[in-house]
Every structure is written in structure tokens, then in C-alpha cells.
């Protein structure tokens, strides 16, 4: 479409030119609005407290220093929570991917008797669920409160992702699977040696969605964890910024930089995501595209 337009639109009408200029300016403005909150948070985190309070910070730090970060980094639970989040993300995503691949593959295979029933059984849970309290009682009944399992198991499979995976697996030609069977490959061998190497891009995409969800999650920790040493990063951020805990517990010298500390904590919490985002962004977009194609 772009091509045809370029080739036929030899003359560029003045109104068209005006529109394009307006469009570019407008989109630049939108980009600015998208980026500015992040820029401001970073700038404020390096700024003097008084400058933040007076509203002198705009784009660059005022009176640049790292004192707020020094205060944040000695907060004992921060590093613990960082490693907790890392653990929850890695283990959680590994479980997610394993189950999603197993489920998606099994449900995609015609020789599995009853796959329609099982698919329906899974899909039904997308539209109806037991809700917060019954799920809490199940987790509690299993003795999982205050364990890592309460974080990684209740959401171990996203039905949506599993159905995506099944749809993808269905496009793998039967002949390929049959040829592998003739060569003496059994089901696990076919899956791991033939199918998965062909599905790396899809696996990446789905894995990214799972990993981001784990990294950003806070509510399951609110529900299921009460021991501070198990808290993920997001809970610490919530305590520092939204519940004001560092500030209330601290001595007067720290109070002087309450705002700086809050901004520094926000930066610490969002930095890893922002750093990897530009590189993995295309996988996410691909995920939306797969999802929008009806089988």
C-alpha cells in the first residue's frame, strides 16, 4: 500500500504536505508525553530534595548527586526483594513455558482422544472463575501461604497462551511428525527435537509475556505472602512510595530526602524492564498479531 502510494503520488498537494507536517509534530508530541514521566522520575531521583519540592527539576537533575540511591541501596529488603523477583520470574516462567508447551502440544494432536473435551474444559476457565477468596482458600489449604509456590503455581498456565501455542503447533505439517515417527522418534522426542526448534520465535514471544507478568506482579504477593523476606520488588516499591514506610520509620535526616528516595526507588524498580524493552519489543508485537488471527 505504501509503495503504490509513493509511486502514484507524484505531485504532493500542499494540503497533503501540511497534513504530514502536522502529523509529524503531533506524533513527536505524543512521544514526548510518553517519555516525559520517565525522564522526570530519573531526573528527580538524582536531584536535591529542595529542588524537587520547589519544582525546579524539569529534564536534568538539579544539583546532581546519588545520595538518594545510597539510601535506597542500604534498605535491607531491597536486594533481597530483587533476588526474590528474579527467582519468581525465572522459576515462574520456566513452569509457565513447560506446561504451556505440553498442554498446547497435547491439545493440538489429533490422536489424543478427548482433546475437544479437554480444550473446552480449559477455555471455560477463561470466562468463569472461582474468584479471589476461593482461590485464596485453595492456596491456603495446600499449605502454600508464605512459600514461593503461592506465587508461581496459581497462574502456572495462561489459557490464552496455551490456545495460542496449540494454534501454532497445528500449523506444523503432519508429514513432518509422521516422518519423525518413522525414524523412531517417540512423542517427547518429536516435541523436543523437531517441534520446539521450529517454534522458537513463538516460545520467545509467549515466554516474554509470562516473564513481564511475573516481574510486574504484586497482587499475588499481597494475597499470599506476609513474610518480608519473601517480598518481591514491587511490594517494596509499594511500601516505599505508596505506603510511605521508609519515611515513617526513618530518622529526621532521611526525612529530608523523602521525595528523592521515592523517585530513586521507582527508577530501581523499572530500570531492568526499560533496559530490555527496546530489544524484545518486536516479540510482544508479534504476540498481538498471532492473537488477532482467527484460527
Amino acid at each position, binding site marked *: *500500500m*505504501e*509503495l*503504490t*502510494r509513493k509511486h*502514484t503520488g507524484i505531485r504532493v498537494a500542499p*494540503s*497533503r504536505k501540511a497534513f504530514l507536517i502536522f*502529523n509529524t509534530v503531533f*506524533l513527536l508530541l*505524543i*512521544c514526548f508525553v*510518553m*517519555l516525559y*514521566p520517565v525522564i*522526570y*522520575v530519573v531526573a528527580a531521583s538524582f536531584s536535591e530534595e529542595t529542588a524537587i*519540592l520547589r*519544582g525546579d527539576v524539569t529534564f536534568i537533575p538539579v544539583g546532581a548527586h546519588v545520595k538518594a540511591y545510597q539510601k535506597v541501596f542500604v534498605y535491607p529488603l531491597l536486594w533481597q526483594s530483587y533476588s526474590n523477583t528474579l527467582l519468581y520470574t525465572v522459576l515462574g516462567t520456566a513452569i509457565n513455558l513447560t506446561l504451556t508447551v*505440553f*498442554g498446547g502440544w*497435547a491439545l493440538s*494432536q489429533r*490422536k*489424543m*482422544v478427548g482433546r475437544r473435551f479437554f480444550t473446552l474444559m*480449559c*477455555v471455560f*476457565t477463561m*470466562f468463569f*472463575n*472461582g*474468584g*479471589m*477468596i*476461593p*482461590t*485464596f*482458600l*485453595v492456596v491456603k*489449604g495446600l499449605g502454600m501461604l508464605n512459600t514461593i509456590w503461592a506465587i508461581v*503455581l496459581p497462574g502456572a*498456565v495462561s489459557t490464552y497462551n496455551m490456545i495460542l501455542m496449540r494454534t501454532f503447533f497445528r500449523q506444523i505439517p503432519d508429514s513432518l511428525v509422521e516422518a519423525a515417527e518413522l525414524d523412531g522418534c517417540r*512423542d517427547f522426542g518429536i516435541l523436543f527435537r523437531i517441534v520446539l526448534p521450529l517454534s522458537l520465535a513463538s516460545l520467545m514471544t509467549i515466554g516474554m509475556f509470562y516473564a513481564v507478568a511475573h516481574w*510486574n506482579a504484586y*497482587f499475588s504477593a499481597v494475597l499470599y505472602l506476609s513474610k518480608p523476606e519473601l517480598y518481591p520488588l*514491587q*511490594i517494596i*516499591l*509499594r511500601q516505599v*512510595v*505508596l505506603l510511605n514506610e521508609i519515611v515513617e520509620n526513618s530518622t529526621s535526616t532521611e526525612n529530608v530526602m523523602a*521525595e528523592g528516595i*521515592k523517585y530513586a526507588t*521507582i527508577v530501581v*524498580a*523499572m530500570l531492568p524492564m526499560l533496559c530490555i524493552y527496546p530489544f524484545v*519489543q518486536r516479540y510482544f*508485537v508479534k504476540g498481538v498479531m498471532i492473537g*488477532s488471527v482467527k484460527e
Partner: protein
Amino acid sequence: MHTSRGSRLWRRIWAARYLYLMFLPVLIYYIVFRYGPMLGLSIAFKKYDLIKGFTGSKWVGFKYFQQFFNSIYVWRLLRNTLLINLYDLIFNFPAAIMLALLINEVQNRRFKKTVQTITYMPYFISSVVLASMVVQFLSPSSGIINNLIASMGGERQYFMVQPESFRTIFTIMNLWKSIGWNSIIFLAAISGINGELYEACRVDGGGYLRQMWHITLPGIASTIVVLLIMRLGHVMDVGYETILLLQNNANQETSDVIGTYVYRRGLKGGEYSYGTAVGMFQSVVGFSLVILANWLSRRYSDTSLW
């Protein structure tokens, strides 16, 4: 004959035994963590007793549902849920379409990619970071919004405790977070439009906005309709986890939705049966709406979830 058919079925199942083995952990997951809680919904009709558990507690029928429907909360929660969704539908849904239309007009590939990368970015920021930024920026003493208001001679406002500001705050936050992400699907739909249509329109002397109006918009109309209908199925859903972070006693009148209420009363307050009943009310209404939406979608656009 009966046995032979049975054994044939068994043989087929046996042939797929490894597939069942793979599916087993998934099946266990669904039974324990998805269907287990559904059985647990029975406590909405019981007076849940921590010691007696799911089965031992006494049946009380619809007592907790009646308690909810007779309380002032039912209208407040429904009103808040529906209004937040309505705001989103009126402002954020068309905004994403607009953004897609504008991004589509960009000729420079690199600029286009950059705009897309930047506008999708906020979608990956966690709800806690998002809520933290909102609270910080709106802070009456040091937030940039209030600093701006003060510098223009206005009076500093404590926005987070004003019930009348909550919906606006939440809607703008969601706009920032998801406008780019929501535009992806419209961009995909636009790229599916036949390029010859534009050419024909140009030959007929159609100007630039006319092409947008007569070709691009009709070209994505079916996508818009389907998404609108599907959204209808989710008007009972709001991002209650984010709302919980922004909620305080002062703004509760407009910020309270079913999810936050169930958490506060049911889980934190320990009223498990009552909380379950309220949550179940939401699930049932939500489920009915999804079915209705799907029926509408199949009827008017040949697209359906099942």
C-alpha cells in the same frame, strides 16, 4: 462387540499415552487451581467456618447475596465499575484508533518504528510503578502537576483524596499506559486494506482526509465492531489491582469497585462467605455478558470466540 469397541478405544488411548502424560500436569493444574476454586464458590451459600472448612460449614442459602443487594455498596460498586469502563470506551478506545490512523500515515520507516516503540513502552511498566508515578506527580506539596498549577497562580490540590477526580486520573493513566498498545490491532487491520482502493479514490479526486474517511475507517470498521462487542463482555472488569494502589479512604466513594471491595471486606476483613458471594455475583454477570457479546458478535459480524 461392546468389549471390542471398548478395547479399540483403549488402544487409541494407549497409542497416545505420552500425550496424556504431557497433559497430566496441565490437567492437575486446571483441576486444582481453576476448578477447585469453583467448587469453593459453595461457601457463598454457607457460613464459612475456618475450622470446619469447605464441607463442614452450615448452609445459609442466599443470605450473603441478600446482604449485598440490601447494602448501599451494590449500586456504588456497579456505578463505579460501569463509569470507569464508560470513560475508557469514550476516550481511550477512539484515541487508539486515532493514533493508529496517524502512525499509518508516516512515510519514514524509521520514524514510524520509533514512534511505535515509544508509544508501546508504557504498557510494560508495572502497575505499582504506574501508581507510584501518579501519586508522586499529583502530590500536593511536590508533584509536578501541582508545581505547574502553582506556578500559573492556581491553588494546589490534593487530587488523590478528591472523589470527583479519581475517574479522570484513572482514565488518563490508562490512556498513557495503553493507547500505543491498543493501536497495534488497528494498525494491523489498516495494513490489510487493499491499496488499490486508495488509488481509485485518488483518481476520483479524493483528498487526503477523504481517503481516511471513506477507505481507511470503513476498512477497519469490522475490527472496531468486533472489539467494541468484545469489550461489552468485559464491562464488569476493571484493573482493580491498580485501583487498589490508588485507593484511600477519602476517594473510596468513586474508586471502589467489586474487586477492591471483595479484597477489603472479604479477605482483609475475614468475611470469606460474604466476599465470595460478592465475587460470584461479578463472575456470573461477567460470564453472562461474555456470552451475550459473543452472540451479538456472531450475529452481526460473523466473528465469534466459539
